[in-house]
């Protein structure tokens, strides 16, 4: 229901730690009419320039805390709130080259009342400044 708003236009860039580029990051929202607890986020899939990212290389951050996707599955208190922009970081030595990149995002959430586990997708072309 908010598919086209999942990938945010702002917040795309490389991540630098200790002088090294260790990956890239972007801001993402849930395509859902309410927030949900992190244990119900089953997967956040990223494909960059056609190349699927390994689940182990994805990190999720909201309000100053960071989880791996496996850690999120047993996080029973913290939530991804309605419309909240979370940072999704992909560990990737040297990050992304300056220029235009095609980013594909899928989010799979477990919603108690639905008779299926929905996966919702968004694709955007975003630019890493030179």
């Amino acid at each position, binding site marked *: *229901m*908010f598919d*086209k*708003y999942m990938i945010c236009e702002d917040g795309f860039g490389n991540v630098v730690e200790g002088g090294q580029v260790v990956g890239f990051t972007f801001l993402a*929202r849930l395509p859902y*009419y*309410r*927030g*949900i*607890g992190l*244990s*119900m986020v*089953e997967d956040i899939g990223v494909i960059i320039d056609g190349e699927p990212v390994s689940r182990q290389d994805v990190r999720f951050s909201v309000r100053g805390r960071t989880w791996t996707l496996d850690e999120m*599955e047993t996080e*029973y*208190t913290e*939530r991804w*709130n*309605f*419309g*909240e922009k979370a940072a999704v970081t992909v560990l990737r030595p040297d990050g992304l080259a300056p220029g235009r990149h095609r980013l594909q995002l899928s989010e799979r959430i*477990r*919603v*108690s*009342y639905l008779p299926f586990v929905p996966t919702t997708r968004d694709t955007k072309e975003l630019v890493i400044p030179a």
Partner: protein
Amino acid sequence: MSTYDIKRGVSLYSYQEEYFLRQKSLEDLIKVSAEMGANGIELISEQTFPDYPNPLDPSVYDNWHALMAKYGTTPVCHDFMLDYKKYKDRPMPFEEQVASCKVDIDHAARLGCPYTRALVSIDPKVLVACADYAESRNVRLLIEVHAPLHFDHPWIIRHAEAFEKSGSDYLGFLPDMGMFLFAFPPVWKEKFIRDGVPQHIADYICKAYEDRVLSEYVILEVEKMGGVGPAIGMATTLRHNAAFEPKRMLDHMDRIWNIHAKFYEMTEDLVEPSIPYDEIIRVLKQGGYKGYICSEYEGNRWIQDAFPVDSIEQVRRQQEMFKKLIGEPQAAVGAA
């Protein structure tokens, strides 16, 4: 003749597009609702309040009541979710489900809501186990009767029987008017065509819906027509929707205390093309309904790919329709 007292309200769910994008604040939404005369306010707290159902700062409740007082609005219903699939590897134990519902009952009471909405998939035993607690907080627990379920479905009959057996006056129903979908919504059809459904298949599905053909036959026929992907998706919506009859509410009027006035589109001439509100209001009057009918706009997801969304204008049109159908006295000419 039954006496009725149909009051107008709005679920803040209606404004999800603008609230999601942070284009409107909670105060903005309460203000515009009051301006339309939609004075009863319903909300999904997991949408309205970040971090709920974790404990909220007392200032959240103070602000809520200040807004209600400032704009003359009335809290009606807190819609709760009960995430019984919280644990991936195991079901949520019964007692934990009951405890979770009690958190929502307390929250509804703090908001001043006389009702709290339970989703339709919740086990009636959980609700019955909460009835005494709900009564102690003076909050009624209402199961939402939502398509594809309906008042003659065995699952809803099971709830009705459990409520009667409990003897509690604090368990009831909140019907969603989307179950009375008498025509395939034009905004759905147009979205499916934009997604690639061939015109002749889209026309067939709409005609088959109006002819009340069983969904499984329609899906099979669309497959035979060569339909794939979005065409099957469009046909499959018939599994989840049907034109049940508004008069089926009449057997349950003593336990219907709030209503979701679901709509997908209000045209400029104040018509919802797919849900028969004239018949619905007639039935509610016949049944002596005394309660709120809360606008629930759900059209944004069907148009946002191609058109700007104006949820406030959509709700305003539905409220204008309700004024006419309910027959509210017009404001006296020259009144201050």
